[in-house]
């Protein structure tokens, strides 16, 4: 397996990961599951970064991945805090229960 083929497969995998995450965000109704699916999308993107970094022979993509991981950690803590607030507010974690912004 040569270098380009590896990159090709890695990008495909990242696409799959991203798609699974996106579908989860759109289809699942539990807030925690949605959060986890967002993590999945972030990591799919991370994988693409790393693969392209490898292909380009620079470290830029890998540096970006570290940034994404830090932001993801922050996002996870904020997201879980919101989940707790939501649960306290409506006693449910069904995303469809929260539609006060309906036009």
């Amino acid at each position, binding site marked *: 397996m040569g270098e380009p083929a590896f990159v090709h497969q890695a990008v495909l995998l990242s696409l799959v990961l991203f798609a699974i995450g996106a579908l989860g965000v759109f289809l699942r109704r539990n807030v925690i599951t949605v959060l986890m699916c967002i993590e999945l999308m972030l990591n799919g993107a991370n994988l693409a970064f790393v693969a392209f970094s490898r292909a380009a022979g620079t470290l830029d993509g890998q540096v970006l991945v570290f940034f994404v991981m830090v932001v993801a950690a922050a996002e996870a803590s904020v997201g879980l805090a919101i989940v707790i607030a939501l649960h306290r507010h409506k006693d449910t974690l069904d*995303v469809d229960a*929260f539609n006060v912004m309906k036009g």
Partner: protein
Amino acid sequence: MSELTTLDLLLPFAVLLLPLAGFVVLALFGDWINKDKEQSGACWLACGTVLAAFGFAVATCLRLYAVAGGKEGLRFTQPYLGFEWIEAASFRVPLNLLIDPLTCVMMLVVSGIGSLIHIYSVGYMAHDEERVRFFSYLNLFTFFMLLLVMGGSLPLLFVGWEGVGLCSYLLIGFWYKKDSASAAGLKAFVVNRIGDVGLILGMIFIFHAFGSLDLVDIADNAGALAPEAFGVFGPVTIACLLLFVGATGKSAQIPLHVWLPDAMEGPTPVSALIHAATMVTAGVYLTARLGPLYHQSETALMVVAVVGAVTALMAGTIAIVQTDIKRVLAYSTVSQLGFMFLAAGMGAFGVAVFHLYTHAFFKALLFLGSGSVIHAMSGEQDMRRMGGLRSKIPWTFGTFLIGTLAISGIPYFAGFYSKDEILLSAIHHPALFGIALFTALLTAAYMSRLLFLTFFGEFRGGHEAEHHLHESPWTMLGPLVILAIGSVVSGYALFPGHAGARIRLPEVIQPVFRLGESPLHHVSWVPVAATIGALVGILIAWYLYLAMPGVRAGLARALRPALAVFSAKYYFDHVYDGFVKHVVVKGSEHLLWTRVDAGFIDGAVNGLGTLMRGIARSLRPVQTGFVRHYALLLLAGAVAVVSYLLSSAGRVHL
């Protein structure tokens, strides 16, 4: 003969700024200076600034003569302080003053007669609580009027022009608690504004034709323009006619004369200063100042002459039937201004200014005299309640008599000389000459009528009023005496000319018009005819009002249709009133308000709002409130953008 120094160039500046300084001080500290209502320190301060301005004006004129030595075309014009007021491409207006013989005459008239009227006002307004406001306005007026006559370019003249209009409005409506006074002020302001539009358009046309608004430039270059024959409407004719619209507004010529008689609501010194001696002559000054330009257009000159002659005649006939002493004088002013325009229209600009100058003396005298009468009568202005005042207020009577003789054109009084020259200037136009001569007769008749009704016969005001009759204080009589002297000598006063010669006023200012020597040739029968006309006018008035008053009723019956027209002032006010009520008000209400404003403009604005609400309503379902729908839209958008970028770059190979 000597050279101009920097000091000389600052002299006119002092003339201009002293009254302005007086206004500022009075406006800010006037009440503080006059702590006690009885004090008149602030009033004397106002007089002082104008008197000082007069002194500086005399000094300016003397220096002009000393430097130019009576040579032709003498003038100095200087961009003071090197300051450019407006600078836009080729449109440049420096802040410069123009001092030439015409300016000198106007400057001396404005500041000289202005000083006398200021002093008179100290006495006349002695019992008015708001004297400080009055004097601050008077000072402001003097400043603007001086700016009008000293400004070296049309825009600067226009600043003065608008300024005097403002002061006129403020002073007509000085007793603003009186409804008729504030209404008269508004009328004056609005009618003047109509004229001002003409003036602005005229300035635009002149700039178009000359590329300059500098008065010296215009006068110097006017001769090079192609003369426009009668009936040709070239740029010069249009510019002159537009400027003349401005002049008719300011100088109360038909059809914009309607404001001046109403302006008599103001205090009498205001009528004397603004509405007789100075401001209303601004139109004549403007026409004379641009004389070289008018000279190139026969149409414009003829329009000026005809409007002047018709105004003189109409105002003269109206004056005959007025009963308010000040209104007679107001129509008389309109009539005399018509005479000036007649002379200007005949191309005799020097003569027009000559009459302006003699008229300033005797009309200011007559107005101040009438003020003295009104003062004696404790505010009564109706001549039918006066009579026999000659022995009660002898000084007022004596000076008023001189003023009447002067305006009637009796030989050896000022009006005779200027009116004689006006008649001479019109001698080649029999119709205009006839109108002028007949108006001269009318002038003598209505002024004598005023004199006889007021000062002769029996007192008709009742015992109470008769008991209160009193001669005015010296502050009022002093200016009357000085003006009376001026009304006699100003007609034949001589001025230093070239090489020690003594020349008359029209010759002094003739070089300003760049038209060579004055074309008037004296005709011996004209002054005789004018004198006979004046005497006939006086005799008719004497016959009807003193000798045989019984004849009057019969005559009035015989002439009823004509007198009705005169009393109704030729229905000008009726027509304007009808126009405003029916066309302006109704048109605004039924067309502009209900149709254009409420229908079209409001409709467009509200329609736009309704349209937006409709669009928003149809788009509202997009906002479901479900976060994942928004996320889906985000993703779809991102996919669309990325796929567009990739496909356009032609690099899609997964």
